[in-house]
């Protein structure tokens, strides 16, 4: 059986742990939500903004929304789930970043360049999304 290359091993490890972390957070949020139910006091800035733009008050539209809801005591269970979903979105980008590093280390400048291009497009799309 052919052994996977160092690049394949590193990317596989990043995707596996990213996926496991994401699913753990999503499930933890769901379990807390099932036990505690809706939070008694939701994070007010998000709620007001969501109502103003006519969407569900439980939606998170930025990392700041998630961070503020997690900072509440007790934390909003939906924010834990949303953090898991954010991890799920970021994991493929981390996989590409890991590939970039691994290709560079292996001296494969061509594929390091291609990985950098893909990562650049991903970062640009995240930045455009964050900018609204």
């Amino acid at each position, binding site marked *: 059986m052919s052994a996977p290359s160092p690049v394949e091993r590193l990317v596989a490890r990043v995707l596996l742990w990213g996926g496991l972390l994401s699913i753990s957070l999503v*499930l933890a949020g769901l379990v807390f939500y099932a036990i505690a139910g809706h939070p008694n006091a939701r994070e007010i800035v998000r709620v007001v903004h969501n109502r103003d733009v006519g969407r569900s008050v439980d939606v998170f*539209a930025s990392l700041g929304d998630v961070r503020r809801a997690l900072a509440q005591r007790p934390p909003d269970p939906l924010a834990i789930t949303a953090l898991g979903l954010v991890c799920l979105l970021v994991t493929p980008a981390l996989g590409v970043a890991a590939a970039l590093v691994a290709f560079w280390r292996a001296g494969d400048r061509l594929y390091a360049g291609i990985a950098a291009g893909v990562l650049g497009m991903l970062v640009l799309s995240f930045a455009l999304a964050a900018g609204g």
Partner: protein
Amino acid sequence: MAGALVGAALAGVVPTRALQLLLGLALAYSTVATLRQLRLELPEAGEADPLAMRFGLEGSYYDGARDRDVKYRATRVRLGFAAMFGAGLLSGLLGIGSGAFKVLAMDHFMRLPMKVSTATSNFMIGITSAASAGVYFARGDIHPMLAAPVAVGVLVGAAGGTRLMSRLRNTTVRKIFLPVLGWLAVSMILRGLGVGLP
């Protein structure tokens, strides 16, 4: 990604029904192409492609069903690139995933083994989806309580499917893929013709 960007820019200009019909016809072609290769376990080695050699588009994988390493090399890379661009274009225009086209591009045009095509397509979908999902998240379109069960289900199913695929023959993977492809083709053509589905 380039196709998806162009498609996204053109969305709204081209009528949705025409797009659905176009997608349905492309999927129907994909279904016929898959049907013609239904009994093909591994593609025959094609002519050496200069682009494939330049980019090192070759490798090997351990095939659990055959209990041996399988070597492969991509051919007709330009054709594969054109099909990928088309896949991205339709994906961007209709806001749908284009895994079926990516598999077609790699399996049919680039003559890669089915398992390599599906695995590579899966990886590419993860990357391209991350880009668009970020936009949906920032728009507040992702409700955690709706997305969470779907994400858990897909992750568990994908992990199981991936483990299962390594033990299946390429022809079996193709047989599983075919009805899904056929259903997508029929449903898209019907939508394009304005026929409602139950």
